[in-house]
């Protein structure tokens, strides 16, 4: 390679800084391997950092995941590249070589103190993607309260170039001239931990998401239930009313051939049950009804958690929702097949609806492998070549997979999967020596 002196060398490249990527990177770093962790977002943490509490223990999600995030950033054997994109990966003998583009955030990562004075003076307000569009954010912003690194970034697509942030920054960290940085790398092994995509609730047109503001999706409810919530408490987005009769629609975008996702997302029953319990705490007078096809409470302590939720008077109705209509006062009328009572179509009125959206595969990364094909399974997740014996193996020798990049799973299974993947990666590297 011409740029040999510029090539950064590591033992393992971990792609994705969610809980799977962090766990695997930490395991491998503690075994003495040098890791480069590439994250496409501004912060590591993945989806877990945005969750309220976790089923079935109701432990605070951020309290579990932030120490792991900070351990990852402080670990000397891990080099983190956030807001970075892998352009290509190629096999070269026993190694992989390739290119990463670190995109400019227009704020110096080393000097920004995260003081947010820039946010105060920025006049632009656009949808805050980290609050799932329930409130606005500025064009310069710290992504979210517990982001790591806690460094501001400028969204140039919405910036009016007024320069107010640059004037006010006490650390002189704003740099509108920052350019993308090209990083060449050589690694022995690659671990894919790119996670999942959330089903786009708008695709179930009959449920009215987007049209009816009091129909929200489960990640929006997660945000409403955390201390760093978008509103002062759980409220209807349409008119700020405190809801008192909330419905959950399970299997929104899962087990549904009509939207191209025939499989079960594995976690939606349990996260809906969890949210129902949390809502009973946040809104003690509220009624919560869960419309389901089957309840899949398959893990340790899950069935007991489900039973406990029933005992708290959360109503479970076995019924498939056909459509939702909005009434003048913002309430919602649900038309459903009452499966346990002869399958008749019934209607029920609620003042807020939560769509329990499913998981979709995130397989974009397959396209960066230039000379060998990273195969996908029939449901478009990264194919596990030997699911029973070596679950982290992929179709490319030396490339491994962990967490929800391989299939839908909850956090405990993701952590187990990351543990298994780190052991397989370590075994692979040692076998080459």
């Amino acid at each position: 390679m011409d740029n040999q002196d510029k090539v950064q060398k590591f033992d393992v490249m971990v792609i994705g800084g969610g809980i799977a990527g962090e766990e695997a990177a930490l395991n491998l770093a503690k075994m003495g391997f040098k890791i480069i962790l590439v994250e496409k977002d501004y912060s590591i943490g993945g989806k877990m950092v945005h969750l309220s509490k976790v089923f079935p223990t109701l432990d605070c999600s951020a309290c579990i995941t932030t120490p792991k995030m900070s351990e990852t950033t402080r670990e000397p054997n891990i080099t983190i590249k956030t807001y970075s994109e892998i352009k290509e990966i190629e096999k070269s003998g026993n190694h992989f070589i390739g290119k990463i583009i670190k995109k400019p955030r227009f704020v110096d990562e080393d000097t920004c103190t995260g003081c947010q004075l820039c946010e105060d003076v920025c006049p632009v307000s656009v949808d805050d993607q980290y609050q799932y569009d329930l409130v606005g954010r500025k064009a310069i912003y710290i992504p979210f309260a517990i982001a790591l690194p806690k460094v501001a970034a400028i969204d140039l697509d919405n910036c009016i170039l007024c320069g107010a942030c640059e004037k006010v920054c006490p650390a002189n960290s704003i740099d509108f001239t920052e350019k993308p940085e090209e990083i060449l790398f050589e690694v022995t092994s690659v671990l894919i931990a790119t996670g999942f995509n959330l089903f786009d609730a708008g695709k179930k047109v009959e449920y009215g998401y987007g049209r009816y503001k009091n129909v929200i999706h489960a990640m929006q409810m997660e945000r409403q239930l955390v201390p760093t919530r978008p509103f002062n408490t759980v409220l209807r987005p349409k008119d700020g009313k405190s809801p008192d009769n909330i419905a959950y629609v399970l299997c929104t975008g899962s087990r549904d051939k009509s939207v191209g996702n025939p499989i079960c997302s594995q976690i939606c029953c349990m996260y809906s049950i969890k949210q129902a319990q949390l809502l009973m705490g946040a809104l003690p007078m509220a009624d919560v009804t869960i419309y389901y096809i089957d309840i899949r409470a398959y893990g340790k302590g899950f069935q007991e958690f489900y039973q406990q939720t029933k005992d708290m008077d959360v109503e479970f109705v076995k019924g498939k929702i056909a459509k939702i209509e909005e009434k003048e006062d913002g309430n919602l009328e649900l038309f459903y097949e009452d499966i346990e009572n002869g399958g008749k179509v019934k209607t029920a009125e609620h003042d807020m609806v939560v769509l329990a959206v499913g998981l979709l595969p995130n397989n974009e990364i397959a396209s960066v492998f230039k000379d060998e094909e990273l195969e996908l399974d029939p449901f478009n997740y990264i194919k596990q070549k030997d699911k029973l014996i070596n679950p982290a193996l992929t179709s490319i020798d030396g490339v491994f997979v962990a967490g929800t990049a391989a299939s839908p799973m909850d956090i405990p299974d993701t952590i187990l999967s990351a543990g298994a993947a780190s052991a397989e990666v370590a075994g692979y590297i040692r076998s080459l020596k």
Partner: protein
Amino acid sequence: MENKKQKTVDILKETRKASENGKIRVKEFMGIKKKIKASLKLESKTIPQIIDETKLDASFVTYSLMTMMKYGDVQVDKIDDDDEYYFYKLKEVK
């Protein structure tokens, strides 16, 4: 010092225009912020009361009021007698 601070945005301006969407959103947000502030000037109000008074789109008022709360312009006062709607007031500037 002031000149140096201005520099990088000015350099970018030579090759890039300000975002059109950004400009629209500034205008929109400034407009609604002004109306909400005017509505809350004398007393705290619920979101439906603000909507009634300003005749603005309901969900846009909720979104904007919550954004104003995030940036410290507005705070919660109390909840109404039916425990349905919160009253919001302007944050006192000390």
